[in-house]
């Protein structure tokens, strides 16, 4: 059986599998002797663990996600960052890997700046962020675009195949935030716009199979026109 066949569309309340030897994963619950879905999406089995991948709805923040946000406010010990979630997200001073003058926080990041951050924890009060790590921090130049957060896996592709294709073809540096915000940085504006167009192309056709080949064709056509 191929991987595609194993995936099954499920609706809330639907029994995915019967029997005692399965474990409920994300989006599922154990009910009686079966595993029941409580989300609308695709059910997937991996080593007896059943989980449901949602395909619609708002972005659900998770620990370890790299996201792109906008500095909303500055407090005495950090920054409040809008990452497109209903919860507040906070980047404390201690998670900035360099010396910061406490009386001059806006020198590091000012209100309105865009930043790439990582979610390090989610609790009742809100989301904790960090910029310790490679590729994280304030964005100086380039363009930002927004897509539906459910389409992020298609933009990245299997093991990053799609995103490296776009990077290769356009010579741009691209960071895809899990919340659907994408940063594109290139040496000239034409390259950046081409990358943006390519991403829009993918997100409109996110349900096509064999999309990577189609994107390759698309790039060829674009080059021939030039």
């Amino acid at each position, binding site marked *: 059986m191929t991987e595609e066949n194993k995936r099954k569309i499920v609706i809330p309340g639907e029994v995915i599998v019967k029997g005692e030897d399965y474990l409920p994963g994300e989006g599922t619950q154990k009910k009686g002797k079966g595993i029941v879905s409580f989300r609308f999406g695709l059910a997937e089995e991996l080593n007896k663990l059943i989980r449901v991948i949602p395909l619609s709805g708002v972005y659900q923040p998770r620990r370890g996600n790299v996201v792109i946000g906008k500095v909303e406010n500055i407090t005495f010990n950090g920054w409040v960052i809008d990452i497109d979630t*209903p919860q507040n997200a906070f980047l404390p001073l201690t998670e900035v890997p360099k010396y910061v003058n406490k009386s001059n926080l806006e020198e590091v990041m000012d209100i309105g700046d865009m930043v790439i951050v990582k979610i390090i924890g989610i609790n009742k009060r809100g989301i904790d962020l960090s910029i310790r790590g490679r590729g994280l921090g304030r964005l100086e130049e380039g363009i930002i675009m927004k897509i539906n957060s459910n389409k992020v896996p298609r933009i990245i592709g299997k093991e990053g195949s799609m995103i490296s294709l776009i990077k290769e073809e356009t010579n741009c540096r691209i960071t895809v935030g899990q919340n659907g915000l994408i940063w594109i940085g290139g040496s000239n504006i034409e390259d950046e716009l081409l990358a943006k167009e390519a991403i829009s192309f993918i997100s409109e056709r996110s*349900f096509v199979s064999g999309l990577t080949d189609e994107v390759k064709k698309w790039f060829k056509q674009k080059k021939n026109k030039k």
Partner: protein
Amino acid sequence: MAKEFKRTDGRKVDETRPIKAKVGIVPNADGSAMFSFGDTIAIAAVYGPKKMHPQHQQDPEKGTLRCDYSMVSFSTPERIRPGPSRRSTEISKITQWALEPVLIIDQYQTMVVDVFINILQANASTRCAGINAAAIALAHAGIPMKNLVSSVSIGKIDKQLVVDVNKDEEDWEQGEGATDIPITLTPEGKITHIQLDGKITIKQLKEAIELAKNATKQIYEAQKKALKEFLEEKNKE
């Protein structure tokens, strides 16, 4: 009373009007759906979970569901004055109570899930169509739910119980007149909402619930089909 009860539109007593359901009709919303019983058409749009505003309505312990039901002004032959009315406020609250038991929104503290229901065309049973549309719209929005809910109205015309009343039957005046009983059930047969407008004996009420259980099975299948078709179509494209 005649042996074979004749309904004005020729339906059998346990037959609903043609059911239609469609998911994903409001591109701007996080989840949306249309549901119709014959000439009664309801659309529902879901937004959220998002931060609750005004702030004083935030619940720090669990998420909130907020429903808003309204009829568009051209939905009936007599123009409906836009804006909240006694009736629409009641139905908004009823819809919220009908849906709340199946939602798992405890983890969305201080947040709200907004459900907007609009009746495009009305021919009785609008609240049932609205609840059915809202249930699939909530699923489409990715809100965790224990189950879907399906709603149907049972009527008593004179002495006869019928499923899914239309406007003519709702206004029935001969004999004992008309009684309207909207019922919302989960597929397991648990009642999340029941209303009664008129008079009925306990025995007949029990019969009415049994009728509703059978009728909601069809409605549930239509809802299920609409949700699955939505994803299947996207896979085909």
